[in-house]
């Protein structure tokens, strides 16, 4: 379970970069335009280290890897000492040319070796303070020592991978996702409807939490919409057991019983000529089954995190919610949620309605140098949450 197999997805981390890849024998991935083969990840364990050698990520021992990536301790950055030395800007007069470095890299010379060449060919390195030397080495290590670590995908790691691509997931921050999952009370056996434009990140989280229970998971997406794909569900390599009860249905047709009825009656065009048509027909049937099932199902949870107008979605779906069920709506702005709140108050039959945002603050915990990170996210977005009750 914690080793990689051919076809599995993996999350690669290297310094503070995170990338989701699929492992396929003989098929390269691309990182910074470099072709990289992942064949040697197969059968390796979750959390293993890999070094890039001649286009292949090759497993290396934990101890060796740790030694390579260990940063120098910039110990003089202490409180009580003054390091604000103007004349030392951290740069090093370098004679090794960019092209030469690229040459070395393409020859497969190790990062270690490149760095020692950089140091020996630097005109000023020796003259620097110890502090500056360490800072310089750490910078170069980050650039040239490319030790990757391969992880089995998890929701946490997917969040991490999207940190620099937040626009793709409606800027949904990890703490906001975490709270959304709690507030929607997703659990084994829940019937859940999800309307999301977050690359399937929410859907994947829900599928994992439901873990193939008896409940149904409805992924409501606009038909023919490009963004309605859910790559995150693929990334998670869910077993069939987990996805059997997941239905992706066209949101436009929800509640339109006539259309569903007509479509269902029109189905027996009995000529599955080729494989492709057969698959298309199967997918169509799956959608129809999902739509019919949806009309019959009382939902325990409704999650909306959509680029479409949330209020009209809520209005259209709220009557599908069972007594004692939960709804959560995510939005980047409070304004959208206030519209929903006003509708809910007018409608009645809901309690514990809250709108909240959150602060997530990360800390540097170092001897004599403890403080919050000097950069943080100021964009948690807002969650509206509540419960359906008898009115």
């Amino acid at each position, binding site marked *: 379970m914690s080793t990689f197999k051919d076809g599995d997805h993996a999350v690669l981390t290297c310094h503070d970069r995170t990338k989701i890849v699929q492992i396929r024998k003989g098929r390269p991935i691309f990182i910074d335009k470099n072709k990289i083969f992942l064949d040697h990840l197969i059968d390796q364990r979750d959390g293993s280290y890999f070094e890039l050698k001649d286009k292949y990520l090759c497993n290396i021992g934990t101890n060796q890897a740790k030694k390579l990536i260990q940063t120098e301790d910039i110990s003089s950055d202490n409180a009580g000492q003054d390091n604000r030395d103007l004349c030392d800007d951290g740069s090093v007069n370098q004679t090794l040319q960019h092209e030469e470095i690229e040459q070395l890299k393409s020859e497969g010379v190790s990062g270690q070796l490149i760095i020692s060449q950089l140091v020996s060919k630097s005109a000023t390195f020796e003259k620097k303070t110890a502090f500056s030397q360490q800072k310089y080495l750490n910078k170069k290590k980050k650039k040239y020592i490319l030790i990757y670590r391969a992880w089995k995908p998890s929701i946490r790691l997917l969040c991490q991978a999207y940190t620099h691509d937040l626009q793709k997931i409606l800027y949904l921050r990890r703490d906001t996702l975490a709270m959304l999952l709690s507030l929607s009370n997703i659990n084994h056996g829940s019937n859940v409807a999800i309307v999301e434009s977050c690359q399937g990140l929410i859907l994947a989280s829900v599928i994992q939490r439901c873990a193939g229970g008896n409940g149904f998971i409805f992924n409501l997406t606009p038909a023919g919409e490009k963004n309605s794909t859910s790559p995150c569900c693929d990334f998670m390599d869910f077993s069939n057991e987990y996805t059997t009860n997941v239905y992706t249905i066209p949101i436009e047709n929800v509640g339109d019983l006539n259309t569903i009825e007509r479509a269902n009656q029109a189905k027996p065009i009995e000529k599955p000529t080729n494989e492709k048509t057969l698959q298309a027909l199967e997918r169509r049937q799956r959608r129809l089954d999902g739509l019919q099932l949806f009309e019959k199902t009382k939902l325990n949870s409704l999650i909306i995190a959509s680029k479409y107008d949330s209020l009209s979605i809520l209005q259209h779906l709220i009557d599908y919610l069972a007594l004692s069920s939960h709804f959560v709506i995510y939005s980047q702005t409070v304004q959208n949620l206030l519209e929903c709140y006003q509708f809910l108050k007018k409608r009645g039959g809901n309690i514990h309605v809250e709108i909240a945002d959150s602060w997530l603050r990360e800390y540097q*915990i170092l001897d004599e140098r403890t403080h919050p990170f000097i950069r943080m996210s100021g964009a948690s977005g807002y969650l509206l949450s509540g419960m359906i009750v008898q009115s």
Partner: protein
Amino acid sequence: MTNLIQEGSKVILYLGYNNLHVIKAKANEVYQTKFGALKHNDLIGKEFGSKIICTKGYVHALSVIPELWTLALPHRTQILYMADISLILLELDIKPGSIVIEAGTGSGSLSHSIIRSLRPNGHLYTFEFHELRSNLARNEFEEHGLSQFVTVQHRDVLSNGFEHENIADAVFLDLPAPWNAIEHVMKVLKKTGGRLCTFSPCIEQVQRTCQRLHMNNFEEINTVECLRRIHEFRYQHRSKIRFTADQNQEEIIDRKSNKREPDDDDGDEEEETTTNKKLKNDSEATTKRQPQETESTLTAIGPLVMPGHTGYLTFAYIKQE
């Protein structure tokens, strides 16, 4: 999981925002609320979420779900709230099948959320050095039908460790001196890799913990704080100043503010001729033209008082083979 209240069911009565009571349904009993007497017999057989009529009003009967339980539970200790709990679940990768260790059990606020996440095939081992608390938590899990997912133990883990070895995917510590439990944590975590979270209110505790984690070769150590800010709903009533210049001195306005957009004069009476375009650009204007010239807008405002600190969460990972 049936959705009907039965004899013996734990029920959370929702009397209003942040006014929750917990009772156990028992035939023929009566419970006094601020809305008058509630007959238990009126509960039994009803669906969770139902409105239950009391003598002087009504309440809603809800099931024990972790978020409500956290708000309603009997506090035996400081408890963890939803923001921290949610982040802990995500960062510890707790999912169905996970084996999780928790110390201490405290009031069981976090435990309920962990159990929800690791069902149907995971298990929580929760340790509490205070015997009474431990027993109370065990009873609650029993009453909430969660016993099969949790083992509650009365045990001082700082002295005696977690009993098990190489079984846990994740460990959560809410102890005064978590750094003293690090060796025990290493023993109980799966050698193939496992995650740890410690919760500490004071920064000195965090510093000691991180030091010990570094010493013991933990990786990916990071400390965060998460605060949830629940907004207050308020109607904002805004009136406009009645500038005398706007009302009877059109030529002065024209002279003075020639840069002003035609849409922006607002003291006049022409609301019936409003065009659609104008509405789009200045949709507030229409509602302002009520006799009293007061506009009420629903707003959500940051609260005057909110939780300013709960604790620092420190996460770490260790792989021991």
